[in-house]
């Protein structure tokens, strides 16, 4: 702010004391938010970084080393399988909704409404559903697969939402250009529309990955909490978040839980950075 601007501001505030008060409130709110945020991150880092030691990354989990390596690998597997299920399903569903379905179609409205509702449901509800459906009814037991299917359902609305937004932001002039050259619907959608929306779709997928990594409630009752690396998808395994939850719950390994938190934090930070970077690129492409 320039000096003149500031002086002008002070004058205005003298005339309108209420707006000065309001500015103060806004400032305090902003400062508090920043402080809380910094405190959390700082606390995790200060507590956790000194606890990082090689034995935490040993291949095999034992009750002595409480290694998080199996959990890291399980997390990666969980993310990969869930995206394999929810990614194509969500993307193609949105492609249908935005490109193929007629506007005002009843089914479209129903699907949209469901997706929006599903997005707001607490994840423990998904966990319960997953347990009743995959674990019990389908008799998969506590297993990686049951967990994957459960989080897939959970991230489906998120992927659909971001894909739809991305597809809608593709200018109609691209579609017209393609049709005008004699291309059909399929070619237009797959060669022009989806590639143009690619960045936005990717950003949505990255958010979904973050959601999976951070999930505990929905996985506890579906993937279970076994600390060893599952040998196949029908065995139970724990992701990093659950690993951390278990460590702190048992009360004996709070230090190791702190170390796990650092790794989790770093992963989530990196992913959000990636999502933001991609979103920015998307804007640049739109011009």
């Amino acid at each position: 702010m320039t000096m003149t601007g500031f002086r002008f501001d002070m004058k205005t505030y003298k005339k309108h004391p209420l707006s000065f008060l309001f500015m103060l409130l806004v400032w305090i709110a902003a400062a508090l938010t920043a402080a809380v945020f910094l405190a959390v991150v700082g606390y995790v880092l200060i507590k956790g970084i000194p606890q990082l030691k090689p034995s935490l990354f040993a291949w095999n989990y034992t009750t002595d080393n409480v290694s998080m390596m199996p959990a890291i690998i399980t997390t990666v597997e969980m993310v990969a399988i869930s995206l394999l299920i929810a990614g194509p399903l969500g993307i193609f569903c949105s492609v249908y909704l935005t490109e193929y379905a007629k506007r005002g179609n009843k089914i479209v409205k129903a699907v949209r409404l469901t997706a929006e509702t599903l997005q707001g449901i607490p994840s423990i509800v998904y966990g319960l559903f997953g347990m009743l459906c995959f674990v019990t009814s389908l008799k998969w037991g506590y297993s990686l697969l049951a967990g994957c299917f459960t989080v897939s359902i959970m991230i489906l609305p998120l992927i659909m939402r971001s894909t739809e937004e991305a597809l809608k932001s593709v200018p109609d002039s691209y579609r017209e250009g393609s049709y005008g050259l004699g291309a059909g619907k399929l070619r237009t959608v797959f060669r022009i529309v989806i590639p143009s929306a690619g960045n936005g779709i990717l950003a949505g997928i990255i958010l979904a990955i973050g959601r999976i990594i951070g999930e505990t409630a929905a996985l506890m009752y579906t993937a279970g909490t076994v600390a060893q690396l599952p040998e196949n998808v029908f065995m139970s395994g724990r992701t990093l978040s659950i690993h951390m939850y278990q460590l702190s719950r048992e009360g004996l390994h709070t230090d190791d839980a702190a170390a796990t938190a650092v790794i989790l934090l770093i992963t989530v930070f990196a992913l959000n950075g990636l999502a933001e970077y991609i979103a920015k690129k998307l804007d640049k492409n739109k011009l």
Partner: protein
Amino acid sequence: MPENKISVNGLDLYYSEFHALKNVNIDIAPNEITAFIGPSGCGKSTLLKSLNRMNDLVEGCRITGAVTLDGVDIYKDMEITYLRKNVGMVFQKPNPFPMSIYDNIAYGPRTHGIRRKSDLDDIVEESLKKASIWNEVSDRLKRSALGLSGGQQQRLCIARALAVKPEVILMDEPTSALDPISTMKIEELCCEIKDSYTIVIVTHNMQQATRISDKTAFFLHGEIVEFDETEKLFSTPSDKRTEDYITGRFG
């Protein structure tokens, strides 16, 4: 070969309830430039889009009457891909695809089954040359088309339309978003290529119509008021409304 490239007979077009074109009849001769002029909202773009069925994309659009290309009814007896391959379109706002210059031009030919690299290379070069933009882009074919200037983008779009070897090219105010020099380039380009194509151009710029077109149609409220040789229409219009419009006494 029939005398007319395109004939429109008794065409009525409705957008839902709105009667946008009223009993339009017009014959477009081959290897000429035909201009559509008229005030905003009178249906010029609508008629232009009817000529390659771009109106099919508009929900609630209904058409009665006939449009023929070389004597064949385009709404009844012609594949839509065949029609659009033969009747290309250039839009008001340049709309290059967000891909490389090369891929933009090759998109059309690839759509119609041309896959050989050497064939595509030839088509790309030939089309860009015809659209007189080859010199400006030949060294950066692999770069994004979105990096070109507005005028270059529009000529790229013309090249893209030419690449599928159409017989007719429809242009909807192709220069309205461009500077005078780019406009001039595109006008010259139209005159250069008209020997091998039939061009229909919508324009708000009456000087442009007089400069480049052979025939001009004047539209008002969804009807063609007058259609004649450009020279005749601008010098001695037979309808009072045409005269009012071209002398700027309209409304």
